[in-house]
């Protein structure tokens, strides 16, 4: 870096010492600019997804995306077999956007299996769900899983369920339309 040089004492003539004051002033101005415009947006992450049209959804394979949506206009039997067979995590809400019950359902099951009462302890419900999904993943494998949440459920709880599915080893997560919207579509 620059240094503040002093001319030899006692000698007459021009002082050639480097004046760093303007440089320091400018540095502070630049520093102030960067501090004021600093935005820690690196904390924001993304979940990639596919919005492929229904005909592609139903016939062709999917790209390697983490999440996609299954449009209500596509009948269940037109989906890829692995998506049809995939387990569905159902999140029921009690009101005010809070989760009430966590259920699991496969195509072969006559009724959904209740995993936890999410209204009592959401953290415990997530743990129970994770344990059950890991067990299912170990037993039957597969990368696909569907999430079906009530329309009133708050987005943060949907993301919690997404996280649990992802951490349980499922790489392809499909969002199913909320039951009310699906009925309206039909």
């Amino acid at each position, binding site marked *: *870096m620059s240094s503040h040089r002093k001319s030899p004492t006692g000698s007459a003539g021009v002082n050639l010492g480097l004046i760093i004051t303007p440089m320091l002033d400018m540095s502070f101005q630049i520093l102030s600019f960067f501090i004021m415009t600093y935005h820690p947006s690196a904390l924001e992450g993304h*979940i990639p997804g596919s919005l492929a049209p229904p005909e592609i959804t139903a016939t062709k394979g999917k790209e390697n995306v983490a999440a996609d949506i299954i449009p209500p206009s596509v009948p269940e039997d037109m989906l890829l077999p692995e998506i049809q067979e995939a387990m569905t995590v159902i999140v029921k809400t009690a009101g005010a956007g809070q989760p009430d019950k966590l259920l699991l359902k496969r195509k072969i099951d006559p009724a959904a299996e209740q995993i936890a009462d999410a209204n009592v302890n959401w953290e415990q419900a997530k743990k129970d769900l994770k344990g059950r999904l890991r067990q299912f993943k170990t037993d039957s494998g597969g990368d696909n899983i569907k999430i079906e949440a009530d329309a009133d459920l708050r987005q943060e709880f949907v993301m919690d369920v997404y996280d649990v599915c992802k951490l349980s080893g499922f790489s392809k997560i499909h969002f199913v339309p909320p039951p009310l919207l699906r009925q309206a579509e039909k």
Partner: protein
Amino acid sequence: MAASVGSEGADPNLTPLLDLVLQLIMFFMITINFVRVDQFDDSIKLPVATSAMAIDSSAEDWVFLNLDAGGKLVGTLSGFVLDTPEKIKVHLMQEKANLERAARARGKTGEAKIVIILRADKNCKYGDVWKVLDSCQRAGFKYWQLRAMTRAAWLRRPEPQWLALGPPIGRLVPFRDDDGRHARLLRAG
């Protein structure tokens, strides 16, 4: 900044200060991330998703959608009346056509990869998120990204975790309680 107190006074040595300031400037220059403020709405509180990945900027262009807690599109779209899925779809179709035209003008041949970036508030309803995504799909978009906050390791507060000392020949056992947040004493046999 520099003060000179007469010919006999001592000049403060500003070199370390200047070095420090320049280092700080370098830090901010490296880490700064210029964002288009019109794409982000600070009122949106994103949900946390530990599995969210680092932001991918490989797309040709983006359409930012900020969905507030009430299920309303805000930000650049707040000036439009987009209260029905059909209106959202029509608006997005126009947006897509404009972006594709701009991509062709830039010399892009073939299909341009335009990504919908949905920044949905953590308190908005899943039904509202679904309606927006459904409108995007009907408008002909093929890619979307859901934005969420990642828990950066350097910001994650360490969860309280205690070490319980058991009997003299016991073990040191780290433990947490059932919900993984608070600690309670436990003896290891």
